[in-house]
C-alpha cells in the first residue's frame, strides 16, 4: 500500500461508513476526501454491534445497515470507487465477525478483485491476528495494526509485525469526538515513533484542525472518523437528494480539508 502524501506533508486518513447515507453517495464522498488530500481512506463495514465505536459511528452503521449494506457490498464499493477515479489506497475497516462469516479465499479474492489495499479489524488484537495477518501478506493486503497507550510491553511485538502505518489510539476509549486529550498522549506517540520505522498516525477523537496541528507535531498524521461522519449525518438529506448532492459534497470536501495536512500547510 502506497500512502498518498508529499514527503513534507502529514498523513490524513479519513474514515467513512460504507453505505452511509447511500452506497452511491459513499463513492462520491470518497472522491471528495481524495480531493481534500486524503492519504488513504478507511471504509467502515457497518456492524450491528460496533463495540469499539462511539455513538456517531454507531448511528452511521445503523443508517448503512438500513440500506442493506454488508461486508461483500462494502468491498465491492471499493472496486466502484477505483472505477470512479479514487486512486488513494482504501482500507477496509471491519469488525472481525463479518470477516469470519466469509470463506477466506472468497474474502481475499473479493478484496483483490476490488483493489482494496488494506484491512483494519478493530477487535482483533495482536494475539488473535496471526492467521489473518499472514493471509493478508499472502494476498498482498496491508494489515493495519493499532497500538494504545495501554499496550505497554506488547507494543514492540505489535509494531514489529505492523505494515502500512501504525494506528495510535489517542486515548482510552471508543471512537468519537473529544474536546481535550490527555497530555500523556504525546510521550506515548513519541515512544511509538522511536520503535517504529513505519509512519505513525493518531486516531480516536480528532475533531478540529487545532487538534490535528497538535497531533501532527509529534505524529506523522491523523485518522479522522467521527468528525467527518458527524458532518455526513448533518448533510444526510442533502446528500441523498440528487439535486442538492453536489453542493453538500462540496461542503463536505471543504470541511475535510480542515483536517488535511496538505491543505493546512498552505
Amino acid at each position, binding site marked *: 500500500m502506497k500512502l498518498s502524501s508529499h514527503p513534507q506533508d502529514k498523513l490524513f486518513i479519513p474514515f467513512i461508513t460504507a453505505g452511509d447515507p447511500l452506497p452511491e453517495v459513499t463513492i462520491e464522498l470518497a472522491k471528495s476526501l481524495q480531493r481534500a488530500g486524503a492519504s488513504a481512506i478507511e471504509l467502515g463495514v457497518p456492524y450491528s*454491534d460496533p463495540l469499539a465505536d462511539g455513538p456517531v459511528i454507531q448511528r452511521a452503521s445503523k443508517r448503512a445497515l438500513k440500506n442493506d449494506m454488508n461486508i461483500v457490498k462494502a468491498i465491492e464499493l471499493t472496486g466502484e470507487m477505483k472505477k470512479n477515479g479514487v486512486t488513494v489506497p482504501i482500507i477496509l475497516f471491519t469488525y472481525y465477525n463479518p470477516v469470519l462469516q466469509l470463506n477466506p479465499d472468497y474474502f481475499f479474492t473479493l478484496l483483490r478483485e476490488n483493489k482494496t489495499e488494506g484491512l483494519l479489524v478493530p477487535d482483533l488484537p495482536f494475539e488473535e491476528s496471526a492467521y489473518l495477518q499472514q493471509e493478508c501478506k499472502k494476498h498482498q493486503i496491508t494489515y493495519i495494526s493499532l497500538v494504545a497507550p495501554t499496550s505497554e510491553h*506488547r507494543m514492540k511485538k505489535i509494531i514489529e509485525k505492523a505494515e502500512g502505518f501504525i494506528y495510535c489510539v489517542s486515548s482510552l476509549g471508543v471512537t468519537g469526538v473529544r474536546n481535550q486529550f490527555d497530555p500523556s498522549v504525546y510521550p506515548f506517540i513519541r515512544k511509538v515513533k522511536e520503535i517504529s520505522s513505519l509512519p505513525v498516525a493518531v486516531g480516536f477523537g480528532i475533531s478540529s484542525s487545532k487538534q490535528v496541528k497538535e497531533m501532527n507535531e509529534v505524529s506523522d498524521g491523523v485518522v479522522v472518523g467521527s468528525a467527518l461522519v458527524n458532518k455526513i449525518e448533518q448533510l444526510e438529506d442533502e446528500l441523498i437528494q440528487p439535486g442538492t448532492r453536489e453542493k453538500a459534497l462540496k461542503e463536505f470536501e471543504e470541511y475535510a480539508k480542515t483536517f488535511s495536512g496538505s491543505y493546512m500547510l498552505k
Partner: protein
Amino acid sequence: GRFGEFGGKFVPETIMQPLIEIETAFQNIKEDASFREEYLHLLQEYSGRPTALTYADQMTAYLGGAKIYLKREDLNHTGAHKINNAIGQALLAKRMGKTKIIAETGAGQHGVATATVAAKFGMSCRIFMGEEDIERQALNVFRMKLLGAEVVPVTSGNGTLKDATNEAFRYWVQHCNDHFYIIGSVVGPHPYPFIVREFQKIIGEEAKQQFLEKEGKLPDAVVACVGGGSNAIGIFDSFLSEDVQLVGAEAAGKGIDTPFHAATIGKGTKGVIHGSMTYMIQDQFGQIIEPYSISAGLDYPGIGPEHAYLHSTGRVTYHSVTDDEAIAALKLLTRKEGILPAIESAHALSKAFEMAKGMSNDQTILICLSGRGDKDVHTIMKVMEEEVKVEDEAFKSSAR
C-alpha cells in the same frame, strides 16, 4: 485462554492490557488460600450457601420415572446463582485495588447481584441496562438504585442486553484504569469465561457431594438451562470427567423454526460476540440478530465458549425448550413441589421432566434450579391471561 477453537480475546487493543492484568490477578488468587477462604466465607455467611439439594418426591411420583433432585440456587441471597459470581469478581476487584464496579444487565438479575455485592463491599457501582429493559423491569431498576447503584440507560441498538453489554464494554474501554467490569455469565473475552466458571463451580461441587450423601452414587443425568450458560457450567464442571449424562436446555422461544428463539447451539453459527469465539445467532454477513425468549435471562444471542466446545466434543448435549414448554414445567413444579422456579430454570425442568419419564425408578436426575420465579410472576400472569383469552375465543367460535 481457549476451549478448543472457542473463546479467545477479540477486543479492542485498549483493553488488552486490563484483561492481562485481570488474568494475572486471577491466576494469583486461584493459588491463594486466603482468597478462597474469604470467598467461601462470604458465600456461606452472606449468601447462605451451601444451598439445599431437594428431593422432589411429588414430581418424581407424578412422572413415574427417574428420581428428581433440585439444586436450589433459588435459595441464594438475591434469589439466583448470579450472586456466587458477583461475590467472587468483586473480591477479585478488591484484591486488584479497584473500587469502581461496572456491569451489564438484561432483566436485572445480574445487575441486582452486582449492586448488592458493591454495596456490601462499599464500592461504587454503575449498571448498564437497555432502555427497553429498564421500562420492562422497573422493580429491579428501583432495587439497584436502592442498593446505591447508578443505572445507565442504553439507547443504542434495540436497548436490550446485547446493547447493554456493548455499552458496558465501551465504558470500560474508556475507564479501565480504575474500573472493574463484572461480567455476569461465562461469556466475554478471556479470562472471563474462566473466572465466571471458577466462581460458579461451587454449584456442582456442593451438588456432587450432597448427591453422594443422599444417594450413595452420582446422578445419571445433570440438566441445566443455558443462556450465556453460567449456572450450567457451574453445575456441569464437577461432573465433566464422570460418567454422567450432561444436558443443556436453551430457549426455543416461539419455536426454532420461527424467527423468535434464542437457540444459539441449535440454530446459531460460529462467530465472535462480545470478545469471544462461540456459537451465536447471526445473519450470513455476520450481523448479530436480536434473539427472543420469554425468559429474559436466556434472551442472549451468544453462548459461553466452553458450551460451544462441549457441544463440539459431544460431551454435553443441548436441546431447546419453547416458551410454552417452560411455562408448563414452571406451573407443574409450583403445583407439585411448592417451588416457583425462574422461567430460565423452567427450561431445564421441562427437558428434565421429559427425560425422567423415559427413565427407570432407580435412575436419578439432578436439575440446576438456577433461580426463583418471584421476578417472573408478572410475566406468567400475562401469559395465563392470554391463554384464557385464547380459550375463550376458541370457545366462542366453537359455540357458534
